[in-house]
């Protein structure tokens, strides 16, 4: 038989076999049968050595060409098979993506904590540091130093919680306001002083808007020049930032507190729209804080000279701020740890209040 005819037949056979190969194994068999050590093409290549130079000149290129073509055919087929196999695998791996993912629990931050940090963010931007004081206070810090004489009605048991009497008959009190921190700060720091003091306070009172424990935030500025204009400017700046409104109606009313003179209460404008409280504009007023110029007696009690130093102080309810801003109706629920409430009114751990990023 003509050698070339033989090669053509061989190529046809091998190519056919490669095409027929249904999987990697069959394809490997075809490769071994053709290009393997004892494969049909390899055997023939080995025969080249026995050929005459003339024969070799013809047969050599023909065989090498065949080898190259088969190798390529093998490679092509291998690619096809791989693709087919992947397709089959992917098809078999289909899942129902509408199934819910593995459940995760979502935590929340309590509204009081959230507002606590919002208030800090605003006042820190205005240069106020955060100060603290104990919840269990002595009579001096809670009353005496704050110009509240022993016979003042707020000292009576209706409002103040006392601890059991000590051996000397004196009783510690649960601080009724955050104002003792004013005295502790003046004792510890030299003016200029700018602090806020947020924290728990206690009064013997209980209804929809009063609970025996609640949170207040105190503010204190002491230097040689701060006056009521600064107090008004500071409170306006705070209220606008906190309630995130550009326009805010405010009303400053003369009032009375033993520890400030002159004293004033501050109202903000509001209105009820469809059962929801809108802060800023409107015909109604909401009282939100008490404030005034620190009483000379208080400055002296803090160890400073009231002839030289002056400044302002203010106090407001943190929980109440949270209620107003976030539309939370009942103060008592703040302290009941009802999961449904915590989840509904709580904030994400990622909602970190920041003046730059926004507060809420």
């Amino acid at each position, binding site marked *: 038989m003509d050698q070339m005819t033989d090669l053509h037949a061989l190529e046809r056979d091998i190519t056919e076999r490669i095409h027929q190969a249904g999987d990697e194994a069959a394809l490997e068999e075809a490769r071994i049968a053709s290009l393997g050590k004892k494969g049909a093409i390899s055997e023939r290549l080995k025969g080249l050595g026995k050929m005459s130079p003339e024969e070799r000149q013809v047969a050599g290129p023909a065989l090498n060409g065949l080898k190259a073509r088969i190798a390529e055919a093998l490679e092509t087929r291998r690619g096809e098979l791989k693709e087919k196999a992947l397709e089959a695998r992917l098809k078999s791996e289909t899942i129902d993506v509408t*199934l819910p993912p*593995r*459940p*995760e*629990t979502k*935590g*929340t*931050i*309590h509204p009081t*904590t959230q507002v606590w940090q919002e208030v800090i963010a605003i006042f*820190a931007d205005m*240069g106020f540091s*955060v100060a*603290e004081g*104990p*919840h*269990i206070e002595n009579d001096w810090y809670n009353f005496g130093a704050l110009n509240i004489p022993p*016979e003042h009605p707020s000292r*009576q048991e209706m409002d103040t*919680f*006392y*601890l*059991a009497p000590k051996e000397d008959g004196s*009783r510690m009190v*649960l601080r009724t306001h955050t104002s003792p921190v004013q005295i502790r700060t003046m004792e510890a720091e030299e003016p200029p002083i*700018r602090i806020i003091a947020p924290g*728990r306070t*206690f009064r013997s009172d*209980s209804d929809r808007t009063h609970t*025996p*424990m609640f949170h207040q935030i105190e503010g204190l*500025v002491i230097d040689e*020049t*701060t*006056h*009521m*204009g*600064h107090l*008004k*400017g500071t409170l306006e700046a705070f209220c606008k930032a906190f309630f995130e409104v550009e326009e805010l109606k405010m009303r400053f*009313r003369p009032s*009375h507190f033993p520890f400030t*003179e*002159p004293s*004033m*209460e501050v109202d903000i404008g509001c209105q009820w729209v469809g059962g929801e409280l809108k802060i800023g504009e409107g015909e109604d007023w909401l009282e939100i804080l008490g404030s005034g*110029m620190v*009483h000379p007696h208080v400055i002296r009690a803090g160890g400073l000279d009231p002839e030289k130093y002056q400044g302002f102080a203010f106090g407001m309810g943190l929980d109440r701020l949270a209620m107003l801003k976030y539309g939370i109706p009942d103060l008592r629920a*703040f*302290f009941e*740890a*009802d*999961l*449904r409430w*915590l*989840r509904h009114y*709580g904030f*994400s*751990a*990622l909602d970190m209040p920041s003046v730059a990023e926004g507060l809420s």
Partner: protein
Amino acid sequence: MKFTVSWLKDFLDTDASAEEIADKLTMIGLELESLSNPAEALSPFVIAKVLEARQHPNADRLRVCMVDPGTGETVQVVCGAPNARTGMIGVFAPVGSFVPGTGIELKAGNLRGEASNGMLVSERELLLSDDHEGIIDLPADAPVGTSYAAWAGLDDPVIDVAVTPNRPDALGVYGVARDLAAAGLGTLKPLADAPVEGTFKSPIGVSLAFDGDDSPCPLFVGRYIRGVTNGPSPAWMQKRLRAIGLRPISALVDVTNYMTHAYGRPLHVFDAAKVKGNISARLARPGETIEALDGRTYTLDETMTVIADEAAPEAIAGVMGGEASGVTAETTEVFLESAWFDPVRTAATGRKLNLNSDARYRFERGVDPAFAEPGAEIATRIILDMCGGEASEILLAGKPPIREKTIGLRLSRVESLAGVRIDPQRQVDILEALGFAVAGAGDDVVVSVPSWRPDVSGEADLVEEIVRIHGLEKIEHVILPRLEAVTTPKLSVRQRRRFRAARALASRGFNEAVTWSFLPSDQAALFGGGETRLKLDNPISTELSDMRPSLLAGLVAAAGRNADRGAESQAISEVGQVYLGDGPEEERLHASGIRQGMTGSRSSLAAPRAVDVFDAKADALAVLEALGAPVDKVQVMADGPSWYHPGRVGTIGLGPKNRLATFGEVHPRVLEALDVAGPLVAFEIDIDAIPVPKAQRAARGALNTSDYQPVRRDFAFVVEEDVAAEKIVRAARGAEKNLISQIGVFDVFRGASIGEGRKSIAIEVTMTPDDRTLTEAEIEAVSSRIVAAVEKATGGSLRR
């Protein structure tokens, strides 16, 4: 403090409307509580004439009235009042009007076959009095068709203001008028306090019987009035008293109420015929009793002042009069008392007796000592006008305790303290309008304080008076100057940790709660508290009696309530103070949490498992790490507080005495006591125990990575049951500190093959060389050291 606009106008000459007055009051510190006009509710009711009243054909007690309400049309009304009669003038309520006394809106009706289109009303139906004997019967000249409220003078707005405790002077209409006049809302009229000439000497004498110290009652003004007739007070007075919510009783009683509210001057009127001998002010004798005008009997003590006759106390001074000498309709002789009582003592007396009155409210804030006598003169004149009779000479015991107070004021102080420039003359004008006297010229003046302002004692008080009348709204807003270009950190480490703890826990799925600082005694005891010094002397309830020694009690109790409401799984946390003593340093900041139920809800992908101690341990470690605690250095000890399961509790610390946190399963007995179903795991972190790192540099240390392959080897040790895994890990780590980068515990096995009372603990040790690839021989050597160290530390052996 309530009053009507017409009452105010007795003292203030003004054209201002009720609204203007109300707004101004708020802006000068007398905060408006309410402004209401009773006439508004009465606007539908008109004066009408009964043209004809005839017997109802089908009802004995009803009449059919043809009424002319002034509209030109006649309306038929069926009326049951006995006094309904032809020709009378009454008050008509048309169909559609709301009758305040019945709470019903009138509809057209038919009564036993006769149409009725409205109603003729009684005083009670308009809430004007209790009178329901018949329908309102007006004089024949009452103008038909006009508003009844306007005709009856009920169109008189009622103003209610909140008076701060420093302003006793504003507890009378006259004092309010003075403030309004100073604020430019009109002119204050002079007091009509001309003395009444006494025509005889009082048969009753008065004295102060205090053994030297007259401070409980330094002044007693008295007067005898004889020949009085104590009928009802005139309509104008009744109307005023009713408008502010007081019930008119009789002329003599009403005059004292009127004086209290008109002038802030409480008075008392005794029935002189019932007084035995002379009257004195003295301290009560211990155990003395008095039946007061409220009908209750009070037992007095030696700290209380009484007004007594020669037999017994007749009044609790400054608080309430006695029933025995009270005036009645038959009273003809009276003794009028206008005294001054010590505010502190009066307050203490009222508090001890739990007795409130309008008089006490004023005396404990401080009534004007200079007004006792003028007040008596005004009251005398009113009594004589209303009841007739004649007055004795004034009796005076003691003298008014007037504080002669002068204050130096720099007129420039208003600007430096209040931030508003006010013309000096305007400042002086304001002070004088309020009754202060100003002497001197230039910036430094001397101001005398009027007797009715016990609250004013310093320069700042005067600044307040000036700016409140001038108007706080006139103070310009100023932003505080910045003290630094860029804000520096404002929180302490402790303050930052509070919020980081809260947020770390929220990110781990905890719902942050805030629970009470106080709890029931038995719960405090369960959690290591209950000490006497941390018990409230006056708790609001027994549920809130002791300061909390731990945050867990509140959280566990909350978990119980949530479970009762259907929560199957929960994780709640709190960051807050616990109280280990009553000193500032004994208030510790804790972060705690509880987990109950499953790790998640049911899912097709992964079955949830029950939460266990290791969830609580992971929480504690995660929070510690978030707070910057050196968690790579902590050790875990298998012990902890009594409120945990004794076999399932751990303490995380930097040593046995430096404890940072505890975790574990809450003791079943504690859960039972709190009525909460378990199991429930918990942790508590003592934030204040975590060391504060020394000033940290922002820069991190250089990153050292090893180019050489880490090697991992597994070891299993058989040890006695009571050997803690931590001990094995520590021993292994100690065997080759530099090379070992990590040790994990991946299996704990118990079984017959190992033996009773023993367990096998398998660890994976990772060795990370940094300068070479470890040879088999080196690895072998390290392994041997690990085995030896663990065997030595635990008494166990390598499992083969």
